[in-house]
């Protein structure tokens, strides 16, 4: 008999069988891209065209009606952006992605694709200030409420879930205290309640963590940061795992009518019937990008693609430099504390070792002993670290969150997010680590002078 194999033999044979898969580094360079069929260009061309010619009227109608694959108008889809969308989907292990104008646009698109007035979000309170603004101040005006919880308190996540909750949201590494989100635990809780887990994976990138492998359902990135890597573009990416059951059966049944009921705005299409795996992405593109319009420009997509080509190399160097700087600061007498999960004293140390074995990124905060004035003096004495509001640049950056990125938050909220008046956030770049440490050492010395 062909396959009446004994169990031990079968186990051995199956264990030895490894289907060929393409490695992360190779996908970083090639996923989604083929040599241009028209010209042979090896680099992905920048299709700087608003529209695309239809061969005939039937073809045009077929494209509009999702009967054929192709391009109509660059707000909906663009060939350069599509390469980027495939690339990030490949790197994250998702079924697809949508490139949008910014990380904020990606968060907005995820929310408005699933939620409407009367819906509720449960979110980590350790969020980027811009995300906090959207959830806490802006979305309530549109009838969407958010409850913020301590990301380390699973009981708080559970207690915050209401009948009208439709989304659970956190950052893989919280900004700026580097709270490590326990993605498997929070995802399991969300799934028990029929809810998807959306994570902002900007600080980790797929090189450091692939959240879908831990149970997340949706990922977004501010591609402005490490993915593009050079601080030259603004862009966002929203990725779908294709694993969430949007409501056929089980706990999610009836919770996501935007995907499971006919949509009058697109031929009464039921997106969950149209695509078993990618209903979310279909709705996000056919409604969210079409109507809200926060699309990515093809030139931006090209620049992010250039960045992603070297993502594995850059992220490793970012992490290597960060480890050296963390060690330096942690031993410095003028430094009160360093928040980096690889340090044994960080509350998420054990979790980070499990979820982030390659490293905990290159953005972290530390606190200087002394007055606010000494903090000011430290920042203004730096020469290589640029004082600006961004992270994930090839060049090293520094900022004082309490007076900039998180300044709208009340004192109590700041404390809850792990930010004090003395907190300084660094984004460690790709310079030689000795030069960065020398810069920090000199600035600390200046700050320590009476």
């Amino acid at each position, binding site marked *: 008999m062909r396959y009446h194999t004994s169990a031990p033999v079968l186990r051995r*044979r199956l264990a030895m*069988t490894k289907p060929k*898969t393409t490695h992360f580094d190779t996908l970083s360079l090639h*996923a*989604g891209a*083929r040599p241009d069929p028209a010209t042979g260009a090896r680099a992905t061309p920048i299709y700087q065209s608003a529209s695309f010619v239809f061969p005939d009227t039937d073809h045009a109608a077929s494209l509009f009606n999702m009967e054929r694959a192709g391009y109509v108008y660059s707000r909906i*889809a663009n060939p350069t952006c599509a390469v980027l*969308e495939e690339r990030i*989907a490949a790197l994250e292990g*998702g079924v697809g992605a949508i490139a949008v104008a910014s990380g904020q646009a990606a968060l907005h698109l995820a929310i408005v694709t699933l939620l409407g007035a009367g819906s509720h979000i449960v979110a980590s309170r350790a969020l980027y200030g811009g995300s906090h603004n959207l959830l806490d101040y802006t979305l309530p005006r549109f009838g969407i409420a958010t409850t913020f919880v301590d990301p380390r308190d699973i009981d708080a996540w559970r207690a915050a879930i209401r009948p009208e909750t439709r989304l659970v949201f956190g950052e893989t590494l919280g900004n700026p205290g580097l709270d490590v989100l326990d993605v498997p635990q929070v995802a399991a809780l969300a799934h028990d309640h029929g809810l998807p887990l959306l994570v902002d994976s900007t600080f980790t990138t797929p090189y450091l963590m692939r959240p879908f492998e831990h149970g997340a359902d949706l990922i977004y990135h501010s591609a402005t940061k490490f993915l593009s890597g050079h601080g030259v573009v603004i862009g966002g990416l929203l990725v779908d795992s294709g694993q969430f059951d949007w409501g056929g059966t089980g706990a999610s049944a009836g919770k996501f009518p935007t995907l499971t009921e006919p949509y009058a705005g697109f031929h009464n299409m039921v997106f969950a019937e149209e695509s078993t795996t990618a209903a979310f992405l279909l709705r996000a593109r056919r409604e969210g990008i079409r109507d809200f319009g926060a699309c990515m420009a093809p030139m931006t997509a090209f620049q992010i693609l250039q960045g992603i080509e070297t993502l594995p190399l850059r992220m490793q160097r970012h992490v290597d430099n960060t480890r050296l700087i963390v060690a330096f600061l942690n031993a410095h007498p003028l430094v009160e504390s360093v928040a980096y999960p690889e340090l044994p004293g960080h509350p998420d140390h054990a979790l980070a070792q499990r979820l982030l074995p390659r490293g905990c990124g290159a953005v972290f905060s530390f606190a200087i002993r002394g007055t606010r004035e000494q903090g000011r003096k430290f920042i203004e004495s730096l020469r290589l670290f640029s004082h600006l509001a961004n992270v994930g640049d090839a060049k090293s950056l520094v900022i004082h969150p309490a007076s900039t990125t998180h300044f709208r938050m009340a004192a109590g909220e700041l404390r809850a997010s792990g930010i004090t008046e003395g907190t300084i956030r660094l984004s460690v770049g790709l310079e030689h680590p000795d030069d960065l440490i020398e810069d920090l050492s000199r600035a600390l010395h200046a700050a320590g002078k009476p």
Partner: protein
Amino acid sequence: MYVTVEGDPVYVYTGTRAFERARPTILFVHGASNDHSVWALQARYFAHHGNNALAVDLPAHGRSGGDARPSIASIADWMSALLDALGVDRAVVVGHSMGALAALDMTARYPARVRAVALLGPAAPMSVSDVLLDAARAGEHLAFELMTAWTFSAVSHLGGNRQPGFWMTTNALRLMERSRPGVLHADLDACHRYAGGLTAAAAVGCPVLLVFGQRDLMVPPKDAGPLLDTLPNKRVVTIPECGHSMMAEAPDAVLDALREFTGSLP
């Protein structure tokens, strides 16, 4: 829409057009551990061009209930029962992979029901490798990984999807991962054991379209040699640089092949 066939609820995707008995019908039948969604583009096209496009979820697949049918012949019987349930006398039947074998068998045994048949990625016999059968029988995720590895051409493994923003290989993997326990093995076993392909081919009297992916590793076109030699009244389309997942890898080429074929029918 849902219809009851042999006592079980069956989901049929109709391309967001209501089924009308008076229209010509095209029945789309998916392959192993797949569902109706693999036909979304092509079915929508035909639904919006004067046909009933019926992309079915076979029993135990997708949204349909029931148990996976244990043989190609029983799938073909079920397809005929589906047409009965819908009150459709004759249809063009389009099948992919396992669905192609079922379409072939149905054409031979229910000639009055099949106006024409399109076989995508076919072979007869369609032998399945031992390791894939073993992995599927053991319920190992490896089976889905092997299917994903073999069902796309090498070039498609690096993407370049015609559908903007979708990553084909993970899409295929996620779809198969939704299979109920035992379904993949039942499907593959049915393909592997189907011995009636050439007999069925010899009995086919209606027009036949065969579509091959030039780089199909799952069901290499050369394995269809005996089938090609046996089938009368056939036209053959080979899609360059395409693998077995041709509806995803080359959706327009598949559609155009089907359009030209159905347009040529008397």
